[in-house]
């Protein structure tokens, strides 16, 4: 227990990095996810194909492989950024594929009549998506998005493998000296659990607020 309490500052630093990574990556994933989902439901075949290609490629490659490719492979062709920046971007792009799929399922759940009514009122593709379809779609996908957020929080621990000192890496380093893996990793696990339960609570509140009356 002392091993855990005596090293709280080091673990707190790791937790802050985990939080930064989670929030930045989710913001990125949300924006890219909306764009990809839009492409996947768009009437333009090329865009649809590109969206499908994006989702299938990113979902079918393990995140760890993507991280290692980006950190060690991209510098070989002259693209190099900070480790934290690289990790945040890769996680964002990876999770964007999942966000896009969740959004697409939400869009598909909006009855076709809604889109047709929007068109009848003179809204274009973007307009009907933005004002009519997406708001309703978002309401139904709060829970799946929350799940993706939790998945993303857990996935940030993979950044430890490419040199980012987030919570898991910090716990590892503390353990290297203390040799007390059980209290240290239970402590880290509890921190992850608290993070995801906050996310769960927030999605619960949001879901009630955004519930679409049908």
């Amino acid at each position: 227990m002392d091993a855990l309490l005596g090293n709280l500052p080091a673990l707190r630093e790791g937790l802050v990095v985990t939080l930064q990574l989670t929030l930045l990556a989710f913001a990125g994933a949300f924006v890219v996810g909306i764009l990809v989902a839009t492409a996947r439901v768009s009437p333009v075949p090329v865009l649809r194909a590109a969206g499908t290609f994006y989702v299938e490629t990113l979902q079918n490659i393990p995140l760890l492989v993507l991280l290692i490719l980006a950190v060690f492979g991209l510098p070989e062709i002259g693209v190099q950024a900070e480790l934290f920046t690289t990790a945040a971007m890769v996680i964002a792009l990876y999770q964007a594929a999942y966000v896009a799929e969740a959004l697409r399922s939400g869009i598909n759940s909006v009855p076709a009549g809604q889109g047709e009514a929007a068109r009848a009122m003179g809204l274009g593709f973007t307009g009907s998506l933005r004002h009519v379809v997406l708001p309703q779609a978002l309401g139904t996908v709060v829970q799946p998005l929350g799940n993706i957020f939790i998945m993303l929080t857990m996935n940030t621990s993979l950044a430890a493998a490419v040199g980012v000192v987030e919570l898991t890496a910090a716990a590892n380093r503390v353990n290297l000296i203390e040799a007390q893996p059980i209290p240290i990793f239970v402590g880290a696990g509890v921190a992850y659990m608290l993070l995801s339960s906050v996310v769960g609570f927030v999605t619960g509140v949001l879901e009630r607020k955004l519930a679409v009356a049908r």
Partner: protein
Amino acid sequence: MVEARRPGPSNAHQRMELVMVHAPALSRRRRAALTVVTVLSLAGVAACSGSGGSAAVPPGAPGDSGKKADDAFAKAPVAAASEILPGSTMEKIKKRGELIVGGSLDAPLLSQQNPVTGQVEGFDADLGKLLAKYIIGEPKVRIVNSASETREALLSNGTVDVVFQTYTITPERAKQVAFAGPYYTSGLAVAVKKGTTGIAKPEDLDGKTVIAGANTPAIPAIKKVAPNAKIVTFGSDPECVQALKQDRGVAYVQDQSLLVADGKTEPELQVVGEPFTTDPYGIGLKHGDDQMKKFVNDWLKKAQDAGLWQQAWKNSIGTVVQGDAPAPPAIGSVPGS
């Protein structure tokens, strides 16, 4: 859906059909085309990085050293039946017919799996085989890939019998596990990219970004000599070397023999100065198992007297470090052992 449950001729085929359930809109042909494009683009990335790739296996004649090691195992001593006490850990291992070792599969020169033969080679690996021969009569070893965060637990719950994994003996660790040995003393050294100036001794790393292997004793050691250094860690030695070449840090701190081995394959790498730490490596055993500890210490003494320890060193670390095998450290000479 029926199609998805049908057993396919191969895993890949099966997986493809499972994915198809998720995206029924895509025709099989389009999906196949998509997979091909993805694979091709990945292959392209791999080809780009091929030229700069570093060899994980240090140079040397693996076939040759393998043969030498076989000879060593043939000559290696076997414990007398009277030494295998009834009810002891040794007896349990002998009955099982194999020694379960907690170790690494990716540590060059020490314990690395040869991708061609599947054999684990190196100094730690050979000592494990010698111990197995001593207990069982055959060098039969199963290596459980362990990490610094799992070693203590694997020993205390009996998943592994011994740990041979550059396990530095420290008083903190000695509260959790028993250490036989020390069986080897090593030291950490600093490597930089050729042409780097301003780093002549470990203290010069203060305030700079330093690369180290995750879960290696280098992390606390750097913090001690250079408290303001920023440490970035990567999982394996080739990754650390790659990171140094890509300027992710100005220096790489690692076991000296490993750095020397890296220097042989990477001419850009330069080892600066002498080792700045002394790390006594111990053989991890279950805490409180005094019988086994005495038994392993006796074995280690015999292996050293018979020249087998020196032979194992020659076949591994000795392929990159010049000169004869060093004198082994005195058994029980370190606090915690």
